[in-house]
């Protein structure tokens, strides 16, 4: 067993073990454990990334039982990219939570459990195991929201309802696939489906159920109403995890099912109506989400509506996945946008949460002049917003560029119009959020003279995420190369 194979299991089991242990430890020890695990997961993810750079897919049959009986863990390029983004964002937020005075005691158990679930989804090669991993993520995410106090309980419950409903749809879809193919392994199931045209109707029904279920978890437009209160009322350290990481798990599974379960020729064409439906809802999400974000008066709801809009971009590119000459570009574009959003939105939410803890409110009007007192936090938020708009040197730019090129290749001009409109609107809400913080005087002039807060670790975490937004922007080319490892085509 190689080090990479070892870390394939350990990225899931180490945080899970820590989650269980944290429940029995005193509070200070929990912080130390959390930071230690964050470092360990970074290291393990690095080991897997080295394999990917060498062009190899890491694979492990758990318990020594090969599929279809056992469960395979598999880390290809797509897995490693999402694992890496999760490790980076997760580590920064972990440090933030360890340094913050407002972190709830139960945060550590739940967040480490959530991290284990996220990694479990990203390395799973098995459909049912993916479902269990998503449930681990869903339950801990709901519970993390509920740590926000009385005002967050109702949004948490609403989130719970939608998460369970989505999971059950996914479960029925998975059951249908196993009953047709006799295997739960993604790769094996795809082989069986490719060899059996008579199974196509069942596969189509299964994929439809899975897609609708995952879209609920992803808050695609008509099913987005749960996201805003849940993400906005969650504690400061939790909102970045929810918007940055948790919804990416559902996107990852959706991409896995769409691109790996169907071979590019036959079954995909039957998905065309579904893909166009998703594209239309995605377009509506970009426009409506951005407009709603513009109309918010508080930072966290603004960031949450911005997530609704960003989810739309990913789906706008779904019709392109069916076009032979545009599929690859669209795939790279979706992944780059999702990774960029993970880092940038985590930075924005972390900054908003930081200010909310510092000032007791996230109303933009009352945060006027906050940039003078908390330069790091506001600077980090600005960089995050640069990534969300998709300005050059950010993954958001790489993503939009790839989707735009693919749209030109497939001659879907409406996508270009939509990308332009979405970019303008997002620039609008960025100005709406930032201008008062940076340019205006503080409402209580006396406070402005309080010494600038340069040394706070939470502030450094926010600007750290902002810097990551830019640094990863240089890695756009690497994404295309990484996705070649274990690519579906």
């Amino acid at each position, binding site marked *: *067993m190689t080090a990479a194979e*070892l870390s394939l*299991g350990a990225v899931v*089991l180490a945080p*899970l*073990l820590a989650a*269980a*242990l944290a*429940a*029995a430890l005193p*509070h200070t020890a929990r912080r130390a454990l959390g930071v230690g695990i964050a470092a360990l997961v970074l290291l393990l993810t690095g080991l897997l990334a080295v394999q990917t750079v060498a062009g190899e897919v890491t694979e492990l049959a*758990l*318990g*020594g*039982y090969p599929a279809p*009986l056992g*469960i395979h863990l598999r880390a290809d390029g797509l897995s490693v990219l999402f694992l890496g983004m999760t490790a980076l964002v997760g580590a920064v937020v972990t440090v933030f939570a360890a340094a913050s*005075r*407002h*972190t*709830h*005691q*139960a945060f550590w*158990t*739940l967040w480490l*459990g959530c991290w*284990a*679930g996220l990694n*479990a989804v990203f390395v799973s090669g098995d459909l049912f*195991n993916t479902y*269990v*991993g998503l*449930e*681990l993520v869903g*339950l*801990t995410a709901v*519970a993390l929201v*509920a740590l*926000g*106090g*009385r*005002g967050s309980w109702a*949004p948490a419950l609403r989130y719970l309802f939608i998460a369970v409903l989505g999971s059950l749809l996914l479960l029925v879809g998975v059951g*249908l696939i196993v*009953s*047709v*193919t*006799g295997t739960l392994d993604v790769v094996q199931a795809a082989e069986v489906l490719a060899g059996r045209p*008579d*199974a196509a*109707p*069942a596969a189509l*029904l299964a994929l439809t159920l899975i897609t609708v279920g995952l879209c609920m978890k992803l808050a695609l437009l008509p099913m987005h109403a749960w996201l805003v*209160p849940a993400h*906005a*009322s969650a504690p400061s350290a939790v909102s970045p995890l929810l918007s940055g990481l948790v919804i990416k798990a559902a996107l990852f599974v959706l991409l896995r099912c769409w691109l790996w379960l169907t071979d590019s020729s036959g079954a995909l064409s039957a998905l065309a109506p579904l893909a166009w439906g998703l594209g239309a809802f995605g377009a509506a999400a970009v426009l409506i989400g951005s407009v709603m974000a513009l109309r918010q008066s*508080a930072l966290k*709801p603004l960031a949450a509506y911005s997530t609704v809009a960003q989810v739309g971009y990913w789906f706008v590119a779904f019709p392109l996945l069916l076009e032979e000459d545009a599929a690859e570009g669209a795939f790279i574009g979706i992944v780059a946008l999702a990774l960029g959003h993970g880092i940038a939105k985590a930075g924005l939410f972390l900054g908003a949460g930081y200010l*909310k803890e510092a000032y007791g*409110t996230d109303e933009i009007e009352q945060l006027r002049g906050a940039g003078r007192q908390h330069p790091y936090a506001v600077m980090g938020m600005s960089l995050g917003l640069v990534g969300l708009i998709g300005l050059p040197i950010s993954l958001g730019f790489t993503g939009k560029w790839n989707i735009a090129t693919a749209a030109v290749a497939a001659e879907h001009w409406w996508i270009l119009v939509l990308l332009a409109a979405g970019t303008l609107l997002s620039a609008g809400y960025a100005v709406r959020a930032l201008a008062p913080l940076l340019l205006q005087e503080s409402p209580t002039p006396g406070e402005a003279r309080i010494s600038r807060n340069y040394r706070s670790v939470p502030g450094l975490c926010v600007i750290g995420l902002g810097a990551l937004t830019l640094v990863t922007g240089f890695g756009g080319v690497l994404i295309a190369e990484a996705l070649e490892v274990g690519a579906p085509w």
Partner: protein
Amino acid sequence: MAEPVDWVLAAAALVAAAVVVLPRSLLPHTRIVQVMGFLLLSVVTSLIWLRLDSVDVALAEAALGGGLLGGALVYVASGPRRDRPSAAATGWLAPVLGTAAGAVLVVILASAWLRVEQTMPGWTDPLQEQLPATGVEHGITGVLLAFRAYDTLLESAVLMLAALAALALRQNTDPGAEPELASFRHTHAGHTARSATFSWMVRLSAPVLLLAGLWLLFAGSSDSGGAFQSGAVLAALLILLRVAGTAPRWLAPSHLNAAQDRLSTVPGRIMVAALVAGVVVFILAGLLGPLVGEPWLSWDPAWAFAVILTVEVLLTAGIAAGLYALYLALEDPRATGERTVRHRTKAGESR
């Protein structure tokens, strides 16, 4: 072909479901009636599982879905409730549209099933050939604890985290909060004053439940049963003992009610230890494989049985503790208090 018994079961399930889902305007019912409808549905579903030759699932449904869940829902339904504006305010349009949309969806899905079922290829699975190598004889236990042990681990973790999250919600854990709520220590007194007959009945049935739970646990390797069913029965036993007020002190951590104790008391510690022990030992056992160069979660056939048994016993304890903890968290909403700093809740409430 579907036999009469199938039709009867299906009809019974529909009737039970109708009690649950019909709106108040058509079928005047309270929360408790809905819960009863759900319990009935759960019983019918157990019979359907038996009809489909799935004894294990029937046992799990009866113990978990029917027994424990039903109990928990009854508890919530009979609890205090802040009155909200009546549901009738939504008017008639939404229910009619909803029902119509639902009917259309059923027709679409039914025709999809018809088409799919005709074209679906049959399948046989290679399970039986591999089973002897796992140390267990019963197929489902083999799947749960050997081939798909990883799923079982993650699933136990879900239950564990749900219980820990529920306990966190009932505690005062906000840093910087002032200690208080001493007066709530006694809020639980009502539960101890049950009738003598009831506690006598509980005392009588407790050994039976204990035996049933243990039998389900150890029979699982060769027959129907297993950690989840057994854990559910044992949790039911704990809950009964607590409701009857006859539980020994270490089993009934009434200290948990007092918010300031923060699970630091001895019963609280036992509870948390039981909750996490299953998952912790499962992962440590999974590490045995990598230590000798094998994949994660693989066990040498020589000691596979011992490992699986140890893990299963601890998982059962964890499942029982988890379900019991969820019940404890349901019991006493007072104990949670509300100590969140005001400004942190404002944003949530304003929308």
